[in-house]
């Protein structure tokens, strides 16, 4: 299964996570390698072309703007994993790496079970399946 990382995420994160490619049967790709500065409307098509099951996005603010992209991805059958920072730590590359590695198994299992249209919120505490409405209620 393939997963695309959006451009806010550390570009070397894909390489680092792919060290566990065999173990979890997950391949990570960074969008900057394929389509730097891609427009939102191209993302579902990029995911389709790459046969990616999900897009990982880091969200620190302005969630309203992201809603339409997430909706379009979900409609296109692409799941979305949203990294949310904690009050303690910013989403530095180390934190991005730690969060994804810690919960990679659960993310993989959820994506495999659902076959698309899944919105997962990833925090330091864990990964939770959530609806867009719930996420908007939490972050505005």
């Amino acid at each position, binding site marked *: 299964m393939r997963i695309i990382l*959006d*451009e*806010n995420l*550390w*570009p*070397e994160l894909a390489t680092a996570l792919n060290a566990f490619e065999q173990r979890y049967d997950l391949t990570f790709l960074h*969008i*900057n390698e394929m389509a*730097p*500065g*891609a*427009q*939102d*409307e191209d993302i579902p098509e990029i995911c389709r072309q790459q046969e990616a099951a999900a897009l990982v996005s*880091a969200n*620190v*603010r*302005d969630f*309203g*703007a*992201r*809603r*339409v*992209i997430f*909706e*379009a991805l979900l409609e296109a059958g692409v799941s979305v994993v949203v990294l949310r*920072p904690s009050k303690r*730590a*910013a*989403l*530095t*590359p180390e934190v991005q790496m730690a969060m994804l590695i810690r919960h990679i198994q659960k993310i993989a299992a959820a994506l495999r079970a659902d076959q698309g249209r899944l919105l997962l919120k990833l925090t330091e505490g864990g990964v939770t399946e959530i609806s867009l409405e719930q996420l*908007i209620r939490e972050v*505005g």
Partner: protein
Amino acid sequence: MGLIALGEGVYAVAEVSHILHPTMTARKVHYWLKKGILGPPIRQTRSGRPTLLTFEQLLKVRTVQHLRDDLHFSLQRVTATVEELSSWVFRRLFAQEWYELRFYRSPNGAIAVTDGMHDLEVGSGQLLMPDLLLELDAFMRKTREDWERRAVDIEGFPRLVSNARILGGAPVINGTRVETAFISHIAHEIAPKEILRLYPYIDEEGLYQALKFERNPLAA
């Protein structure tokens, strides 16, 4: 919140005023919204959640403010005049087909605007200098260009852009999907030089402009 299409942009009012700094404030945006000039927002403020506007409404805010500031109508008449003028201008600025808008002073001394087929006269604008009419024409052309590319430059930050087609219009470093807000967020824990090393597609000027735009003290 009703669904809106990708590429239309989604902006909180505070974000609109930030992008259109330094002349715009959230209070002014709310004023024009209340007057009905901008049309209904995507979402009204509710339970602490911000009012959300489209990219078209961001351009409307900028245009209304420009007309208001440039046309020098008397205070008693300014709101009514700007309302009438904006409504006429918006029908043309955001139409499928574009006919160049030209401002001129009519023989009876009134300020008027034409699209080549229809004209609208809007009060006297006594203090208006002739050069300002040409400047208004250029502003309308620029607004139409911005509408067609669905992006606005951010004044004083040439490496930044708000493109309705990228992350719904969240300000980003031009040519990337990297938000200024994200740069400022990680800069609390990573030195700017280290960010440049970790994210090779971010350029130094873009990074410092992002920090300055986000009023991050590290930009100093």
